[in-house]
């Protein structure tokens, strides 16, 4: 019996020692769905988008439509002190484990994000799976914007980037993990997509405004911000970002528009769906200059085709393939010129050289951005059209035929 007594005593002691100290009930936490970071008046301003569960639950329909989130801000010299000040103005402990996105204001990004990254690397409750965005204006403004279809704006923005990455690949989702990995990597530069409020700019901060069939203003993915070391160094446009995605082999699925002739830049009347793409980089040193051979391979389906030519004939299809190839080359060239202009190696050329020529890299790593901007890039592309769709000739041609 002594054995049992000891066991029971130990168990009871265990309860007293460790029991319940970090117990938190679900109705005692404020679930943060999105965080905003701004640099304002020499202090960090953190904004939180806190979910109001009652407003979302289908179980208890509250009287009248109410917003599903509440946004408020705190300021401080560093991030955690600002967060801890939140307890002075909210009844619930902020809970960051389900934070979906973090939006960084332009000012804050120019100031430098080292402090923010330290918070994420140091603390277990700040998840590195959170998506990072830049914002041209204030980050808080983005959090206040309600978005149709989704009740929680944070989730909506998160859904937006996933959708974008999977279906058009102009931007890709940059999780905190990826951002930190790139910034700690060889080239120490990364591109982060940004958000803008498009339309009239009217604030969609009331759920009653969502009852209309159109929304006067909405959050959109806009430019790609280039971060070097830990600071924002510049912006590149969507088209340039698309090229960068091709160069960096981040294309999953996308649609490419092209004109009827290779040289012809005028109306791009046709388009092709890329369902698989692969870009290979091969560095080469010739003289004192680095050359990067970029070769893109893509496969896909013809979605829309408004030029002449019988698509049931393989030579005709090959012609179209060549046109798409030149289009891809142009896209990539555009992307390359953009990153070269900003001297930010977000395409990862540096790490390719580092892998292949480690010794040479060691010598030039300190002046890498210089070397990068002077690099020569030779782009080739190979496109394969797997299917031309259900019609061979296209509408116009069939019409002509039927008349004759």
């Amino acid at each position: 019996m002594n054995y049992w007594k000891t066991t029971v005593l130990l168990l009871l002691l265990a309860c007293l020692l460790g029991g319940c100290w970090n117990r938190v009930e679900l109705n005692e936490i404020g679930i943060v769905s999105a965080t905003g970071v701004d640099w304002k008046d020499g202090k960090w301003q953190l904004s939180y988008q806190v979910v109001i569960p009652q407003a979302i639950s289908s179980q208890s329909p509250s009287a009248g439509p109410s917003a599903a989130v509440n946004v408020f801000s705190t300021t401080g010299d560093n991030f955690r002190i600002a967060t801890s000040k939140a307890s002075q103005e909210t009844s619930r402990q902020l809970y960051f484990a389900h934070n979906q996105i973090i939006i960084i204001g332009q000012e804050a990004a120019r100031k430098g994000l080292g402090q923010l990254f330290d918070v994420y690397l140091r603390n277990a409750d700040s998840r590195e799976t959170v998506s990072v965005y830049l914002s041209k204006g204030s980050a808080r403004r983005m959090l206040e914007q309600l978005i149709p279809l989704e009740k929680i704006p944070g989730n909506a923005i998160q859904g937006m980037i996933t959708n974008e990455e999977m279906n058009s690949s102009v931007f890709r989702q940059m999780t905190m993990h990826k951002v930190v990995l790139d910034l700690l990597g060889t080239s120490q530069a990364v591109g982060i997509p940004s958000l803008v409020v498009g339309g009239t700019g009217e604030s969609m901060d009331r759920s009653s405004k969502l009852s209309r069939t159109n929304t006067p203003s909405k959050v959109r993915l806009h430019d790609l911000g280039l971060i070097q070391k830990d600071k924002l160094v510049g912006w590149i446009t969507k088209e340039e970002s698309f090229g960068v995605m091709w160069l960096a082999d981040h294309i999953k699925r996308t649609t490419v528009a092209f004109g009827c002739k290779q040289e012809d830049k005028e109306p791009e009347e046709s388009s092709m769906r890329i369902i698989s793409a692969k870009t290979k980089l091969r560095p080469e040193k010739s003289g004192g200059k680095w050359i990067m051979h970029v070769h893109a391979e893509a496969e896909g389906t013809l979605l829309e085709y408004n030029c002449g030519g019988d698509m049931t004939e393989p030579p005709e299809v090959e012609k179209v393939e060549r046109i798409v190839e030149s289009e891809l080359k142009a896209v990539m060239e555009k992307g390359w010129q953009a990153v070269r202009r900003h001297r930010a190696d977000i395409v990862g050329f540096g790490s390719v050289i580092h892998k292949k020529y480690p010794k040479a890299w060691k010598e030039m790593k300190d002046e890498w951005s210089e070397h990068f901007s002077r690099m020569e890039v030779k782009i080739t592309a190979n496109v394969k059209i797997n299917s031309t769709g259900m019609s061979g000739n296209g509408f116009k041609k069939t019409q002509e035929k039927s008349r004759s």
Partner: protein
Amino acid sequence: METKGAIMNKQSAEALTPFSPSLHANVQAIRNRFGGSCDLVIRLFSSDAAPERELAIIYVDGIVDSETINESIMEPLMSLKLPQYRYQKGGKLLDALRSCVVSIGSVQEINTMDEALLYMTDGLCIILADGCAAALTADVNGGSQRAVSIAQTQTVIRGPQYGFVENIRTNISLIRRIIRSPDLHVQMHKIGKQTHSNVAVLYLHGIVNEGILKEVYRRLAAIDIDGVLESGYIEEFIQDETFTLFPTLLNTERPDSVAAALLEGRIAVLVDGTPIALMAPTTFFSFFQSPEDYYQRYDIASFVRIIRYVAYIVSMLLPALYIAVTTYHQEMLPTTLLISLAAQREGIPFPGLVEALLMEMTFEVLREAGLRMPRAIGPAISIVGALVLGQSAVQAGIVSAGMVIVVSFTAISNFVMPEFNMAATSRIIRFGFMLMAGMLGFFGIFVSVLFMLIHLTSLRSFGVPYMSPLAPGPTRQGLFRDVFIRLPWWAIVLRPLDMNLRNPKRRPNGKKPPAQRHTDKP
């Protein structure tokens, strides 16, 4: 029935009262011993077979078959004229009666009063003759008893439907009808100073491990109690470990289950007065094997068995996991689920642990009430239960809807278990897990599960490790063919128990007998 030699030997150590040569003295002694009870029937008469000597038939009314007494004992004794029988004065009269007159299968001669009393209370009839210091017993056991009917507690869809009754003789006969082999040995014991209950030990000679059999006998012989009303009495005396929540003996109401256990090399203990038989040795995994597993096709059986294991774990752990996740590890939930649960919890006054305990207690009370109340009130309870537990509690904001789902699913999972006592174990253990989860989260659950596993591996059932063949590991290959899944019958070569059976093989090999595809062609 076997002789009661074993039990007599025990008593012969004490001083036994022999019969007196005088019939009247004997009759008087018996009457006194029963205190003049009204159900004691003493019939004095003289027979044509021996007109000058008085005879007596004594039996206890109600536990004998009066018709048999009349037809097979009284009538031949009273009406037969047997002048040709020349007997000498002394004990020979009883021999003559036994060999020529009494037309009963089981007749034997006894010499002491104590035996006579014991047999009478057992439903036998005593024939005494004047001048003989001995008596004849005739087995006329009978009286009213429940007819063999459908097993109530362990139902199957496919398979024999009948269950045991309260009469041990009927029960043994039910097993005999399944295993028609002289190797089926039945040893009868009497346990209980007042009830003298019959306890039968059944085993298959040549298969059973004799060491375990001896241990069963030893433990049965050590039982000293005034009465045995149910096999539960015996179970608590002979089980290996008292301080455990896990049953170490299987019980069943089904003759086919007992027969299957005997074929597996187990030993069955039947107790008079109850339809529940015990089977030993038992392992943890045998509680997950329903008799139907062996009657249905193997794929269905395996699927259902896996479901059973899952349901058992669910019924033990689900509320604890729910508490741990919602109060300590919210980050583990998908965001949408978290928000949905958080919305349900808005305005709930209690912490998750209290909420869960409240609901579990309510359910346990309802369940017990459902068992004990008169049948006519049944529907009322279920309506109240459904309303209280389900809708109203949620609408009143006392418990959250998620908790109701968790508690209900836990309760339903519990009913999947084919063995009631194993299901009850999980009901009790669940509360421990819930407390630990409420105090320490997943860490608490992990520690408790570890404790439980250590405890399980320490258990033995008649020397056989409780978790065998999983722990301490199978001694032979092929023992897992009937543990987590059931392979087709032809593949189950070994008897499942890892307990050094005399004959561990069921079949010579694990091959399917060849089948011919086209039976109509030559």
